[in-house]
């Protein structure tokens, strides 16, 4: 418990005394927001995991792509 409290205060004091770090954290936050919310949601939301419900369907999809005849 004492260790957890020490870790908590360690991080709390560290963040409170940031100067340049505050700007960096803002950049980090905005960047992650754009990546995870905008990009993931609008451009990369569909994967084999979201499109298909089980591995058999995923295998089938890839096998179909790998073996389809050229038109």
């Amino acid at each position, binding site marked *: 418990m004492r260790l957890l409290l020490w870790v908590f205060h*360690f*991080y709390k*004091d*560290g*963040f409170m005394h940031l*100067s*340049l*770090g505050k*700007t*960096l*954290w803002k*950049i*980090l936050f905005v*960047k*992650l927001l*754009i*990546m*995870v919310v*905008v*990009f*993931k949601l*609008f*451009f*990369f*939301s*569909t*994967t*084999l*995991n979201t*499109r298909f419900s089980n*591995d058999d369907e*995923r*295998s089938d*999809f*890839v*096998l179909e*792509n*790998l*073996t389809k005849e050229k038109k």
Partner: protein
Amino acid sequence: MNELASVDWSRAQFALTAIYHFLFVPLTLGLSFIIAIMETIYVATNDHAWKKITQFWMGLFAINFAIGVATGLIMEFEFGTNWANYAWFVGDIFGAPLAIEGILAFFMESTFFAVMFFGWNKVGPKFHLLSTWLVAVGSNLSAFWILVANGWMQYPIGMHFNPASARNEMENFFDVVFSPVAIAKFLHTVSSGYVIGALFVIGISAWFLLKNREVLFAKRSLVVGASFGLLTSLFLTISGDESAYQVAQHQPVKLAAMEGLYKGESRAGIIAFGILNPDKRLGDDAHEFLGDIELPYMLSLLGYRNVDAFVGGLEDLVYGNAAHGLPSAQERIDSGKIALKALSDFRAAKAQNDTEAMKTHEAILQAHMKDFGYGYFEKPEQIVPPIALSFYSFHIMVSLGMWFIVLFALTLFFTLKRDVQTQKPLLYAALWSIPLGYIAAEAGWIVAEVGRQPWAIQDLMPTHMAATHLGSGNIALSFSLFALLFTALLIAEIKIMLKQIAIGPNGGH
């Protein structure tokens, strides 16, 4: 958007992401060790000037780390949506190293990173020093797992293809992890990061000396930066030699493209400088170069550790050379088509639950699996990567690598001679060599990734078969947004760094 355009946009998007990501990574890899060395000197000598030096470079390290962290996450998104065939086909072989990387990066780097920045007055100097070293080791271990995954794409080993699931299954973890290609790639990539870190330190220190500011700080930083740079740039040459040797063994077409070698020869020389003939085509009699300077025997020595060895040229590798035991690409295309047909037949047999036929077709597939990816090509010439881009990138990388050795040696010599401040041209050269380090590293990645085209996984999966377009979003639009975001991040990094550098080591951070 037609299929070709979709593949091309996916490739452009991945290239853009990887190039930007690798602008941030190498400085983290190199500067972390330089900081650890500086802090070790501080702890050993208890000289507080070294503490200030360490803290100054640590501030710049933090800027680079914070802005660069998670830029690689986008590549994971791209694998899932734009490269789903590939992501599924590689199975747990790619997933396992990346998962280990994620865990290591999260727990090791982030934990000790906090101690490194918040812990100066909270933990003892030795524990702080240990944390700084562990951040450096953790960053480099992360790189190791990423490069194991990349190494496997260049030289797939230690797995078995399961036609029922369409996935490669790992048979031997240690074959994958200790693949000679992965090890060579890891050593060469991290040592390029060390050189970039050293160039960064000596370049900025040179700027302080040119401004006649913070002279003691700058000279001490120069000693550490130039020593570290000289050792690591020499090691970079050794690891580069090993990388080229591995390319010769496992990706001979890439080696031939890197050297603009059309016709194979024994006692092959390496091109020290050359201008490719843009009109040269495979199989014609035109000369490969408009002008070139060749170092005799060196390519045979580099590729096969034997000055008399025969090095296959593009024409030997595409059209075959029976005298030297090189099959033609057409033979491999034919074999690949048998493998593809066997996979189709296996699938049909599976649908009918015909286990005997499944066994038969799987046996045929496995017998031709080494040529599987060739089955997707129609012409032998399709196995040739972009020659000019591979050739010039390789030669730019090597030339800059040689320059860095000279630069570090001269900088160290004049710094130890206590005469460096009067060497204005050298100081300017050091300053302007910072971007050259990045150019060399990116050129190296272009050699590695463009040079292995048309393959996503060497011999098994061509790039165009790896791609899928599952997402509903427009790839051209997301490409533009990526370019915008990454450029904004890069500008932010440069602006914040320049401001912090101008403040100097005595301005606090």
